């Protein structure tokens, strides 16, 4: 009985009348309206824009780059039974496949700890279209002979399909935490990533119709944490950006930058308690996204 009663309170919200001065009120009787204390933004609009650019200065994390790096690192594995690391299939010789190890070191000085399963498929799908797909699910720490540790936890997949008219259809997910100070670029200082890709590009950049890549999700680096909402990168003669890029303020609130899709990467920046402002991203950001698209459309 008591459960039903408490459940009822939940259904329609504020039936009970607080005896204290809680800032809660009944709004039309359909939900509970609460106005908790809010914090102030810590960044100014200019600082927010600068942070967006700093976060993207090395471009967005690229699944294909990461996969290639992983394969390079795994080529240093020690073959055998057991090898180092221990592969599910001890007869395998390549960098892909499924391995698990609680820590081993090769004669060459590479240490493998954790587990990973990766694949790279190059072939033709049942409809006859050429396909190139990479995928991974992993939790590893691989230390190179110089002492730099490649940390990977999470997973990714990127499926690219060559369809009619030289068009490349792709979709993918890239989520996890990755770092490798042994290389330069976005991976050097570590990155937390939760990106979703979907689009249709021109195979090797050749085509009359502009390619489009949609990006959702987020990327976190030491410089800043960004979140993308239907960010559309349209690549024709010029690159156009539309959709939204959000930046997390250290207070925990978010700045929002809505890009208008014009030839210049400009749009409106706003946040709770901040007047809207018209701002433009630098060419550096555009170049970074351009590099990502170029890599994805090359197959």
């Amino acid at each position: 009985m008591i459960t039903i009663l408490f459940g009822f309170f939940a259904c329609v919200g504020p039936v009970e009348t607080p005896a204290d001065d809680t800032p809660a009120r009944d709004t039309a009787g359909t939900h509970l309206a609460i106005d908790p204390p809010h914090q102030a933004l810590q960044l100014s609009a200019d600082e927010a824009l600068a942070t967006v650019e700093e976060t993207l200065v090395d471009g967005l994390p690229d699944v294909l780059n990461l996969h290639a790096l992983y394969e390079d690192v795994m080529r240093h594995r020690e073959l055998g039974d057991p090898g180092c690391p221990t592969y599910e299939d001890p007869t395998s010789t390549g960098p892909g496949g499924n391995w698990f190890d609680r820590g081993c070191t090769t004669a060459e000085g590479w240490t493998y700890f954790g587990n990973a399963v990766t694949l790279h498929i190059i072939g033709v799908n049942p409809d006859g279209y050429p396909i190139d797909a990479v995928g991974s699910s992993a939790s590893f720490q691989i230390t190179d002979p110089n002492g730099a540790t490649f940390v990977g936890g999470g997973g990714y997949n990127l499926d690219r399909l060559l369809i009619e008219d030289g068009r490349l259809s792709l979709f993918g997910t890239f989520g996890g935490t990755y770092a490798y100070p042994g290389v330069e670029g976005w991976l050097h200082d570590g990155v937390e990533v939760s990106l979703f890709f979907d689009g249709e590009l021109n195979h090797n950049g050749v085509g009359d119709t502009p390619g489009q890549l949609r990006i959702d999700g987020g990327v976190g680096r030491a410089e800043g944490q960004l979140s993308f909402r239907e960010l559309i990168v349209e690549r024709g003669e010029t690159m156009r950006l539309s959709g939204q890029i959000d930046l997390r303020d250290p207070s925990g609130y978010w700045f929002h930058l809505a890009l208008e899709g014009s030839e210049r990467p400009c749009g409106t920046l706003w946040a709770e308690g901040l007047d809207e402002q018209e701002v433009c991203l630098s060419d550096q950001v555009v170049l970074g996204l351009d590099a990502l698209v170029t890599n994805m459309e090359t197959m």
Partner: protein
Amino acid sequence: MIPARALLTMMLCVSCGGEPAENLPDPPQKDPPTRAPALSEAARYGEPLDAPRLLRRISLDLLGVLPSEDQLRRVSEDPSSLETITDELLSDPRLEDRFVHLLNERWLTRVDAFNLEPWDYGLSEEQTYNFLRSIGEEPLRIAARVLVEDQPWTEVVTADWTMANELTAEIFPIQYPEGAEGWQVSTYTDGRPAGGVLMTNGLWWRYYTTPNNFSRSRAAALSRLFLCEDFLLRPISFESPALLDRESLNAAIREEEACAGCHSALDPLASALFGFWWFDLYDPTELSRYHTEREQLGVYYLETDPAWFGTPLQGAVDLGPTLAADPRFKTCAVRTFAELLWRRGVEVEDLSTLETLRAGFVAAELRPKALLRLLLAGPEYRVGALTADAPDEVADRLSTARLMSADQLATSIGDLTGFTWTFEGWDQLDNDELGYRVLLGGVDGVTVTSPLRDPALSRVLAQKRLAQGAGAAVAAADLHPDATTRTLLTEVTRDSRPGDPVFTAQLEALSWRLYAVPLDAERQAELEALWTAVAAVDGSERMAEIAWASVLSVMLRDPRFEVL
């Protein structure tokens, strides 16, 4: 009393189908007659424990140990000293540990398995027990610290600090006081917003989500634990469409009325929890850090912005303050404390009592010790027997005799005898991997989520071994010729025999210490007979030790010991 409109509305809205309250028929216009508040069932039909037994119950509930001989003496000489002694107990540092165990009966975070194991962090297998408890206790330690410092209870969900020990400080991104030891106030360094227990790894390791659940189970847990509102108890009825992918599932949740009844509130709440979203459920890096860049992923996965039962949230940063400002949070705190201390669920008949407690809690600015004092002073807590005219259903509802919980057994016997039961680094009374926590009536947090309320065979067996171990340890230590300190056998020596004044004095002291009741002649005769019989069977020079071990073993599994 429940207002007539609320009762009427309740009867019409049990389906939680989302019908707005204003569509309900108008309530009767006639005001109910004014009446004096009715006595609660406990006040009407309950008889309180006497002062020593009540002190025993309070001491076990607050500290997990029996009252000291001095406290028993004071309260038997002057029952009004109970209030002063209760204040002393509320200031005792052992309150913190005890509350960790008590609140765990509700939050259920002290589990025996997480997605990760010590070796994932390079720790040894011997650290498994410490690993599990360090992580599982994190949210409980925050609440316990708020309690012992008597901070407003809202701090539990708004604090910008956490509790960490050496182990969690090593494996999580936590700033821990340099050179400190044990549980300490600490801070995460990964950018997670303030939010008390809502922003702890410990809570969300226990209540994890899966790739197709999208934090909904976590939102449901949050609602259940902090609002006492369980989405799973809402009745639903619908024909299931094909829900094979995220898009069709989200569409059904929005469009099917039966789904929307829960998901219209659940999903926006889940959308605020994506900072704890993991792309690999078994990766230490993913599970150790809060992911600020994922806070808005709910928009992608659930297609809804974060909101709190209709109130938009700007982000996870608003979660704790909004929960703290929700009137249901206070009501739930009162209900939670009441259920834990009354050792029973609350019923409709308790609502007026709960409302009184809630008013007192609010008047005390949500200080948890004030709420504890109110609860401990109430007839529902103090009831030890029923009046002759008590109806049977009242006897079923009121908890007049309460079994010691598994942790109370462990801590009270440990405090009395110094006996602890460990095996390969595990506390055998506090785990179910190798030990006997559930057998003793405890919760494992996953498959057993409510403590044992009535005697059971498994408990009898486990407690028998515990009592035997403790009795033997005490007898061996206390009766050793070179013993300099003694725990329970303070009066006798190996040469004492039944009939000796010291022997009788020893049994009297034990009865008073263990049960807070005087020794009666019948019980004395039984214990003396037991001692004599065991000594006769053994006959060696250790016969006194063995006989006393048997007597202590029996006394420690007497219902008067394990009932409070």
